[in-house]
Structures are given as structure tokens and as C-alpha cells.
């Protein structure tokens, strides 16, 4: 036969709690215990409130550029919930919900966007990497972290998050390819939120799904409704199982939407239709989850009101901690360049000068050493 099929496949899309509130009992029942659903919902509300406050901080000049996470809370949160503490979360910058669930102190994220490296000083044992600014680069670190777990045989895995735009970068390809060909326990979690700043997803990927990018590597891949935390939890659990037992990676495309501007430096009205936004507001993962809880009598308006208060207090305290932090000494940035500071840096730091007449250690004012 001169033309013969050598490979056949398909991509599935998984939804459990859909945008109309329909819940698939078969897949969904028992997936997440009720009290955990409540906890996840509470967490989402708190994270959503952080966005509001951070936005205001930026507008009032108390914080630099900040990327709202609004509308995408279900993705990283569902993943963090489904994973174990020993698993690495390798994030971009729209995964606050997942990071906080893992235990990252909220003020760290605030400090990061306040232009302070202390925001990246991840507490030991948390197994998260710092927010990644250069798009598409952090997935390779996840591949390496997953590899290290396999090397050590410690049963851990790495789950990395990135946007639709990030899938255009070469590093995305290399990370997926290494993981697939070297059999590494990694979950690649794409948050397809329709936009990369002003560029729509079709410029990043004109294929019918982003999920099918995994086919290039012979990787298991699936599309999920990213605003459905049940679907996210199931997909990540299945992927984690595959990673832990067979050292195989999985690619997950979570279809979600960025309800805010790209960052506080952006104005999405320049390039985005109002209609599209309005449509997606109806698919908000928080609304959907609230509906589910309401229907089961697990939530009500008074609970919501007190949660709102709690959230405000919680965030206010985090903001306070971030704002109250002691000022950095001006020489701070020399200190963590290397484990041991080499002589040229010692010299520059002790004088805060690069000009040689100023940095000559004999003539320099040694009191400047901090």
C-alpha cells in the first residue's frame, strides 16, 4: 500500500463542571471532598481580592507593574491541590492561587512586584521556583527538576505553568522534547488565556488546539476547561499518576481567560472586543464554583460576606508586611552574586564606585563598607 497510515490519534477535552453549571457526576463525584471544595473556593476569593488591592497599590505608585491573575484562579489552584508537597511548582506569574495554596507567603509576591528580590527568597522546602519573567524559559527548569527526582528516585515530579504565548518559544519545545525522550516526570500546564499581551492565541498556535502540541513528542496530552477546577484537578491527578509510576510527562492545555489587562501597564481595550470579555465574565471559575456550592447548600451570602471581610484583613496584613519590611542597604545587590564575593566585587561594594580613583582601596573611605 503506497499510502499507509503510520500514526493515528485524537485530542480529548475534559469538562466536569461546565459553564452552565452542569456537573458530571460520574467523573466528578468524590473527586474533591466537599470541605476541600469550600477551602478552594475561599482561597480563590482571597486571591481575587489580592488582585484588586495590588492593582490599587500600583495605581497609587506603591507598586510597580503587576499582572492580574483574575479569571485564571482555577488552573494553578487545581494543580497545586492535586499535587504533593514534594512536587515542584515551576510557575510564570499568573499562578498566585497555586503558590499560596502551596504555602508561599503572600507578601513575597507583593515584594516581587515592588521591585524587591526578597520576594523571591522562597522558604526552604516549599519546592517552588520564583516567578519567571522571561517568557517560556522556566519549563526547562521543570524538566531538570523532574529529572533530578528521577535521578534520586524520590518519587517527586515537577509541574510547570506557562501561557499560550510561551508555547511559541523554542525553549518550550526543548523542554517538552527532553521530558518526552528522556522519560521524565513532568507536567506541562499551559494556561491558554486567549491572549499574549495584545496578540491573540491564533498567532501563537493556529492548530485547532494547543493541546496537540504534545503530539509532536508522543506525549499524552489533553485539553481541559481551565475554569472548571474539577476538570483541572482530575487532569493533573491523572498526569501526576503517569509521571510517578511511568516517569512519563503530560501536556495539559487549560482553556481559560485573562479577565484583566495583561498587566497594569497594559490597556486591553486597545485590542480586545468588549463582547469577548463579557462572554468570558460569565465563565468565571469563581462564579461557577459558587454556583456548585450554593446548589449543594455548602455556601450562602452570609458566608460570602464574612469571607470577604476575612479576605480584606488577610490581604491588608500581607500588604502591611510587604510595606513594613526594612529598607535594603544600598549595597545589597552585591551580596548574593556568588557564594563567596570575589575581590573586584568587594572593592566595588566597599566604595560603591567603579571609577578607579574612587575605588582604590587604599584611598577609599572604608566606612562605606556595609
Amino acid at each position, binding site marked *: 500500500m503506497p499510502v499507509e497510515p503510520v500514526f493515528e490519534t485524537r485530542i480529548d477535552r475534559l469538562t466536569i463542571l461546565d459553564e452552565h453549571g452542569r456537573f458530571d457526576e460520574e467523573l466528578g463525584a468524590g473527586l474533591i471532598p466537599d470541605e476541600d471544595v469550600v477551602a478552594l473556593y475561599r482561597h480563590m476569593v482571597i486571591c481575587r481580592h489580592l488582585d484588586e488591592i495590588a492593582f490599587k497599590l500600583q495605581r497609587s505608585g506603591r507598586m*510597580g*507593574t503587576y499582572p492580574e491573575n483574575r479569571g485564571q484562579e482555577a488552573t494553578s489552584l487545581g494543580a497545586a491541590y492535586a499535587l504533593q508537597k514534594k512536587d515542584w511548582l515551576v510557575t510564570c506569574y499568573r499562578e498566585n492561587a497555586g503558590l499560596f495554596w502551596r504555602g508561599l507567603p503572600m507578601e513575597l509576591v507583593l515584594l*516581587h*512586584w*515592588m*521591585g*524587591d*528580590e526578597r*520576594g523571591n527568597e522562597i522558604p526552604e522546602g516549599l519546592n517552588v521556583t520564583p516567578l519567571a*519573567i*522571561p*517568557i*517560556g524559559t522556566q519549563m526547562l527548569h521543570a524538566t531538570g527538576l523532574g529529572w533530578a527526582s528521577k535521578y534520586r528516585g524520590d518519587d517527586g515530579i515537577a509541574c510547570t505553568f506557562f501561557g499560550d*504565548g*510561551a508555547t*511559541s*518559544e*523554542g*525553549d518550550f519545545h526543548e523542554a517538552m522534547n527532553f521530558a518526552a525522550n528522556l522519560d521524565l516526570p513532568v507536567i506541562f500546564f499551559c494556561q491558554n488565556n486567549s491572549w*499574549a*499581551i*495584545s*496578540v491573540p492565541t491564533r*498567532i*501563537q498556535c493556529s492548530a485547532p488546539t494547543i493541546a496537540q502540541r504534545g503530539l509532536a513528542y508522543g506525549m499524552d496530552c489533553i485539553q481541559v476547561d481551565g475554569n472548571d477546577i474539577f476538570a483541572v484537578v482530575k487532569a493533573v491527578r491523572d498526569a501526576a499518576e503517569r509521571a510517578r509510576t511511568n516517569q512519563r510527562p503530560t501536556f495539559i492545555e487549560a482553556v481559560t481567560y485573562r479577565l484583566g489587562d495583561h498587566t497594569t*501597564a*497594559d490597556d486591553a481595550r*486597545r*485590542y480586545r472586543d468588549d463582547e469577548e470579555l463579557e462572554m468570558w465574565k460569565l465563565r468565571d471559575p469563581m462564579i461557577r464554583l459558587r454556583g456548585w456550592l450554593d446548589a449543594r447548600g455548602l455556601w450562602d451570602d452570609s458566608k460570602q460576606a464574612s469571607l470577604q471581610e476575612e479576605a480584606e484583613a488577610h490581604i491588608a496584613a500581607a500588604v502591611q508586611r510587604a510595606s513594613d519590611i526594612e529598607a*535594603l542597604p*544600598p*549595597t*545589597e*545587590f*552585591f551580596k548574593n*552574586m556568588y557564594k563567596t564575593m570575589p575581590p*573586584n*566585587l568587594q572593592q*566595588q*561594594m566597599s566604595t*560603591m*564606585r*567603579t*571609577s*578607579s*580613583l*574612587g575605588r582604590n582601596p587604599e584611598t577609599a573611605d572604608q566606612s562605606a563598607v556595609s
Partner: protein
Amino acid sequence: MANLTLVQAINLALIQEMERDDRVMIMGEDVGLNGGVFRVTEGLHKRFGEKRVVDTPLAESGIIGTSVGLAMAGLRPIAEIQFEGFLGPAYDQICTHAARMRTRTRGALTVPLVIRVPVGGGIHAPELHSDSPEAIYTHNPGLKVVMPSSPRDAKGLLISAIRDPDPVIFFEPKRIYRAFREEVPEDEYTVPIGKARVVREGSELTMVSWGASVIQCMNAIETSGRDIELIDLRTISPFDMETVSESVRRTGRAIVVHEAPLSCGLGSEIASRIMEECFLQLEAPVQRVTGFDTIMPYYKLELEYLPDAERIGQAIDEIVAY
């Protein structure tokens, strides 16, 4: 004449060159409908259409690599890299291909490409949005590297870059994108690549700088009250050593100021060349007031990192006293 910011001057240059030559096209991330994250390409998408102003996938190597192909085919692509910190993924295509194609093929294939890149610190931006990698592309042969410090120069240099038959990295100091306005001729004109500008004449000391630091130098000079010659290099590679040498032979003293780290920065090259060419006239070692040999810190401390009028002033005092 119009009173324009740096952003507006560049925008005008782009419009005029696109009107003039339909081989000129623009590509990059968010350069279309959005007009670029700094609005440098504002209005171009509407004016010239999506064939000539193209939003690309988010992939810097892809942007430069396809530009190399477009340029080899005779077009005049202008590629925008959104921030200098994202030149990294394109490093290989820039240095391995754009910079080498002419010499590799003895001129059979050439790469008349302009890479526009916002550069430098001082705007309280996130990590990797405040670096100054110009020396990297100076040490790599085969490229031209330009960095204007004023709207008027920006327009003329960009037009030269677009017409240049070789690849040019056009760095735009984002700190002064909108910091001030200047009278800019409305007609097209060129400022030659490779020629410095004497911003201010003086006899006591020669100061060499480029980009946003030129403004810091001016401030320091004014504060010092001394008779200092200030040279704005404008072109980083190949830089105008003649103007520098001529000046230092007269003044006997020199300070180079830049934001990039000290070691192997362009300041080291200029200092070395001054020593080589003005050895007998030098009254003091050339001073370099630059970024430190550390990573540019997150923005809370960026002003500690960047050379400012105070640090430059100290160097002035010291070198004059030497």
C-alpha cells in the same frame, strides 16, 4: 520642525521610511494593533496594514531568524525585540547569522536588518527590563550598534539604520522615551552611523557617554561648574574614536560613563584605546563610571546601581585633582 519626544521621533522615522520604501516592514511582539508596549509603532498598523506591520508569535529567535531570511531576500525588515532582556533567545541568530552572512558568502547574501530594542534602566520595570547589553554586540563582529540620546538624533540615526546595507541593532533608551522633547525636522534626514556628537565643548576633561547616561553626564557637568567636553558616542559599534582621541589629546583627562557592568563594557574598550592613542597626553588614568559587576538589581535599588550625577561628579573631582 516639531517638538517631539524620543518615541515620537522614532515613530516619525518609521512612517517616513515606510512611505518611501515599500520593502520596509515591521515585525515583533505587540507591534500591530497595540502599537508596541511603548507605543513606538502607534498608528502604523492602521496606516500600512497588517502585511507591513506584523504581530509575530512570541519567539525572539524566530523574529530575528525570519528577519534574516526576509533581509536576504531583499526586504528591509525592522524587527522589534520588546526589551533588551529578551535579546537573549535571539543571540544566536543575531551573532551567528545576521552578523556573519555577508562575510560568510562574500557579499552574495546580505542582511539589511534593523533590530529595534528598548534598553537600560531607570523606569522601575521588572527584572530583565533594565539591562544594557550593548557591549555584547560590540564584541561580536559584523553588527552595527546605535544608541541615540535625543529625539533629533534618534530620527536621523534610525533612517540611516534602515538604509544601511548591514544589520544594525538600534537601542532605544527607555528612560528618556518621554523624558523631554526636542525640535525635530519634519523632513527626512540622516545622522551618519559611526559619528559621535560633541554635546558640549570643554578643555578640562573629556567625558564620553551614550544613551540615557548622557543626561546624567550633563547634570553632573552643570553641577561641577567645570569646563568639560561631553561626547555622545551615538554609535557604539563602530564607534568614533577619532573624535574621542582628538578631544582627549587636548584635555588630557577622560571619564567614560555607561549603565552596563564595568568589566568588558564598552568603557574598557574606550579607556584602552585612549591609553593607546593619547598615552603621552594623559594626565590621569581614564575613569569609568558604570554599572557594577553585578546583575542589575530589582527596581528598589536600581538607582544605586546606575551611574548618576553624584557618582560622575565624584569622578570629576578626583580626576581633576589627580
